[in-house]
Each structure stands twice: as C-alpha cells, then as structure tokens.
C-alpha cells in the first residue's frame, strides 16, 4: 500500500465516521462540530487529488464561515431536540425505502463497468510548477470575467432583498438611539425635588403638617 492509498483510506474512514455521527449524535452542537470534521477530512482527500485550491476554499468558506454561522444559529435558537425526534419511527419505513432505492441505484451505476479501474485510469498528475490556484484564477478572470461579475451582482441583489424583506421598524420594539443618548441634558435626567427635612422621630411620620 502506497502512502497515498493509506492517506486516502485514513481520511475516508474519518469522513464516513464523522458523517455518521452527524446524524446519530443527540446534541446539535456536537453534530455541527462533527460536520466540521467531515468537511475537513473531505478537504484532505481533495488535496490528495491535486485540487489544492478547492480544498483550501472548502476549509476557509465552509469550515471557517458557514459552519461557524451554523453553530451560532444552533446555540442561539432554542431547539427542542426531543420534538424533532418525535416522528422518527413514523418516517422510518419511508426513509428506509428511499435509502434502499438509492443504494440499489448506486450499485447499478458503479457495477455497470464504466467506473472500474480499467475504464477510469488514474489521470497523469501535473508537474511541480503547475498551480491550480493560478489556473482557476486565469479562467475566472479572463474567459468568465463577465459571468463572475454578474454573479457578484446577483449576490448583491440577494443581500438587498434579504435585508429589505426582514428589516423593518415595528412600533412595539424598543430601540436605543445613541444620538439622543449623547445629547441628553441634566434637566432631562435629573430632577431636584424640594421637600422639608424629615425628622428621625417615627411618630411624626405620615403627618405632613
């Protein structure tokens, strides 16, 4: 077994184990963390496939940004895990049928002879001076620069749409207004009350005259 094969089996086993834990673990925070592990192992496998740039992007974007956001959401929302698991037994038969069909389909495709080692030989690797970051960048910023810019506009529209649809002032919500807080004067905050001095004698209390 070459080192590359060993690395593949090592990361693949971690990947499958982590993926299985994502759906079986009870605590949603732990599930999210297992998903991070799964993404990371997948990135390692991509590196063995010479897709270094995509692997690093996967770690940066999915692990660094998306999953952290997921964790925030999971921690901030009050998710009732027991309620989510309620229908498990009820949905099990349908789920099992869908899973079985998918396994059969995969089996048919994989055993059809089009995916064995003869018909899918290992592609010859690139030389040492080959950088796939550079290649991706060249394509993205020359041939597809227009599509790339348009995708940026599309994302801008998505942001504008999301904000405009969710952000609105409700009259019942309480707001802080820093500008008004800064401008506050003594007269608004402090009220000096004139009152006669009180005697220590308890018998005089409640008798204002």
């Amino acid at each position, binding site marked *: 077994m070459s080192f590359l094969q060993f690395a593949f089996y090592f990361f693949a086993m971690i990947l499958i184990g982590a993926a299985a834990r994502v759906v079986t673990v009870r605590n949603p925070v732990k599930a999210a963390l297992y998903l991070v592990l799964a993404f990371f192992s997948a990135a390692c496998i991509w590196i063995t496939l010479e897709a270094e740039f995509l692997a690093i992007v996967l770690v940066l974007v999915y692990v660094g940004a998306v999953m952290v956001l997921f964790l925030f959401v999971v921690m901030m929302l009050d998710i009732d895990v027991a309620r989510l698991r309620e229908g498990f037994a009820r949905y099990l038969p349908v789920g099992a049928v869908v899973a079985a069909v998918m396994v059969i389909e995969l089996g048919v495709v994989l055993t059809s002879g089009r995916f064995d080692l003869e018909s899918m030989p290992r592609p010859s690797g690139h030389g040492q001076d080959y950088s796939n970051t550079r290649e991706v960048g060249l394509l993205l910023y020359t*041939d597809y*620069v*227009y*599509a790339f810019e348009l995708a940026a506009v*599309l994302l801008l*529209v998505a942001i*504008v749409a999301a*904000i*405009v*649809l969710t952000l609105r002032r409700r009259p019942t919500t309480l707001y802080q207004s820093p500008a008004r807080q800064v401008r506050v004067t003594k007269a608004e905050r402090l009220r000096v009350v004139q009152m006669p001095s009180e005697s220590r004698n308890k018998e005089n209390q409640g008798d204002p005259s």
Partner: protein
Amino acid sequence: MRLSDLQIWTITPEIIVAIMACAILMIDVAMPERARKTIGFGLTVSTLLLAAIAVVVGQDAGYTIGLYGLVVQDRVSDIAKLGICLITAVALVYGRSYTEERNLLRGEFLALALFGTVGMMVMVSANHLITLYIGLELFSLCLYALIALHRDSAEATEAAMKYFVLGALASGILLYAMSLLYGLTGTLELAGIRQSVSGFSADDLPLAVALILVIVGLLFKLGAVPFHMWVPDVYAGSPTSVTAYLASAPKIAAFVIILRLLAISLEPLLEVWQDMLIAVALLSIGFGNLVAIAQRNMKRMLAYSTISHMGFFLLGILSGDSVGYSAAMLYAVIHAVVSLGVFGCILHFSGEGFEADQLDDYRGLSKTDPWLAFLMLLFMLSLAGVPPTVGFYAKLSVFQAVIGAGLLWVAVPAALFVVVGAFYYLRVVKLMYFDEPVAKTPVRSSAAPLESRALLTVNGLLIIGIMPWIGVIAEACRNAILLVGS
C-alpha cells in the same frame, strides 16, 4: 489579447444601469426623508433613459461577439434592450403614485427594479448558457423580492412564495437541461451547441430529454399552459405597479431567450419541438381565453389573457422560419406596450386604499372619467385584436406566418378562440360605457400626477394602428431576424 479585443462596449447599457442601481442604494441612505423619493425616482428613470440612449448610440448593424464569447450584440439584442429600458421606465412612472401611497417607494424598490432590468438585458444579449442562466436568475430574484416587498399584504406574500417556489423549480429544470446539453455537445456557447446538435440524429434519446427539459423550463418562465399555475396568483397578488413591470418588458426578454435557445441553437431539432409547441400554444390560447371569461377580478382576467397571448407568441416561434420569428418578435413588443397601457390605466384609476382590481369598479367609468375610459377602450380593443389597433397587426402577422408554414389546421382553432376571447375584453367596454357608475367608487383621477396621464395618452395613441411606428418596428424585427438567421 488586448483590452480592446474584449468588445466591452457591447455591455455599456448593462454597466450604466448596474452602477446607477448601486449608486441609488447609497444615495437613498444619505438623503433626507423628503428629498429621497423625488431624487431617487428621478435618478432611476433618467438612468433607464440614459441606458436607452446608450443602446441607440452603440447600435450595431452586424453581429459582434464580446467578452470571450459570453455576450453577443446584434439587431435583436439592440431592439430588445431599447424596448426593455423604455418600457420599464414608463412602467415605473405609471406606478409611482400607487407605490408611494402604499409606502413601498424606497431606494430598494428602485434599485431592485434596475437590477431586474440589468438581468433582462443580460438575458437578451447572452451568447453562452452561463450568461443566459445568470441573467434569468438575476431578473427572477429581483422580481421575487419586489413582489414580497408589500409585506403587510397577505396576497403579495402568497404570490411571492408561489412564484419563488415554482420559479426555483423551473430554474432547476432549465439548469438540468443545460447540463445535459453541455454533456452532449461539450460546449456552452450557443453557436457551438447548434453546430454540435446538427450532427445528432433527431431520435437521439438523451438529446430529446434535454430538449424537453429546455422547453419545460422556458414555458414555465413564460407561463404557458400546462405550466401556467403561478400566473394568475402572481398577477393578482402583486402590487399593481410590480404587475405592470412584470407583465410588460419581461415578455420581450422571454422572446429573445426562446429565440436564441430554441429557435437558433436547437433549430436542427425543429421538427421535434414544433409539435410540442403546437400542443402548448393551442392549449394556452384555448384555456386562457375560456377561463378568463369566468374572472371577476381585473388583474386575474388579464393574467389569463396573457396566457392566451403567450400561446399566440409561441405560434409565431413554432412556424420555424424567419417570417415566424419576426412575427413573434413583433407580437412580443406589441403585447408589452399594450399590457403596459392596461396596467397603467389600472394604476391610474386606483388610489389610496382602493385597488381598482374588480371588474365592477369599472362600471360607468365613461361618465366619471371619459378620457381614461377611452384609453382603456383602445387597450381592450387592441388586446382583442380589433382592426384599427396594433393588436390586429400583431395577430395578423402571426397568422400569416403560421399559414405560410403550412399549418392551417393550427390557425383555425386559434382564430376561433380569438372570437371567444373578444367577449371578456368587450365586457369591460360594456361595463365602462353602458352601465351606471357605482356610488362607492371613488374618483381619483384628478389627483393623479399629470405626467403619468400624459404618458398614458401617448401610450394609448400608439395603439392606433395608423401610426407609422408599427411599420418601422415590424421592418426592424424582420431585418434583425434575417441577420440572426444567416
């Protein structure tokens, strides 16, 4: 490759509109509350006019491919871009007071409308499946948000949800079709696809699947029967100013992408898709016209009428020659102008807290506002296809094309359903001219802004077929299509 080889000027109008949309978003934040609406609105309309001028100045009689093959500029894209910019600008002017009264006229509304226009312009000048798809998504995304902007209205939210879900489904289908086409032909460029497809035999199964999915995706977006379920809900549920926007210019964009994807790239398969489109076109014309009769809601009725008009438009496409394509293009342009006018009338008539979307609201309009009623009469006659109006010329050219293609048996039922359709258009005329006004109908036209009334008048007069523009446009469409075909 030097920068000048990029032909970046082919996308000048898109660049202008996109930059100004971003600027309007920013200006809107910085402006004081009162100046906001006037300045933002003025900037939006002048941006669209500027883009229209840019199209005219940069027009190209030939066939230019730019930006590494992602973009094409030809007569068709020029005419379509010009139409899209002008029609969108007019639609925004019509909708101004309506939108303002419902407190929707914010910087985001205007920016989304502009980004949607960019999406349409990208679509009409796409020479590559990626550009085409991104343009389509850009436009659709803006439209979903524009519809949902009216958050206090349950109908608008429902319409946006339905449109979003079905639109996403249609996008998925179209994308799958594109991936199949890519897999089969090995290229994403439209000209390359055409070349590669002509090498296939017509009964190649994967190609047939790709073709069917392309057609289903496009017809979903177009709203033809049997993929029309979203049209009435979206037309009726959206704020009327958004309905005016989505019922007019997008039809031109839809024509161009159908032309480029189906009629040009997949023309070698003409015999296969012609039969499918015949079925869809006849179903749309029949179903749209019959169901429209039962509607009491004006916007719903117009939605079903649009479905039937889309059927006519497909009749032009399925003729499969340059006569048919130019007839379809003329039909799309005229339909956009007429729809713009009809929704302009509805917008003009509705006021604060009054939607003017029931047919009964139009009872006796000729007595309360004779000029508006007259304009509405012109639009209705044009939709019905009565001779002095442009609607007649549009239908005539489509029928000529269909009969010229030897499909007389398709033309006859279509013509019969035009007669059926005349009933519900004329019913509106009857309500306006022969019924007594309903006391509760508020008359607001005097308060409506003058500029939209003036534009509406121009719009109405354009509909009378003696105007020379119709010949000019018909000629331009014919020349444009001939160039593309060669």
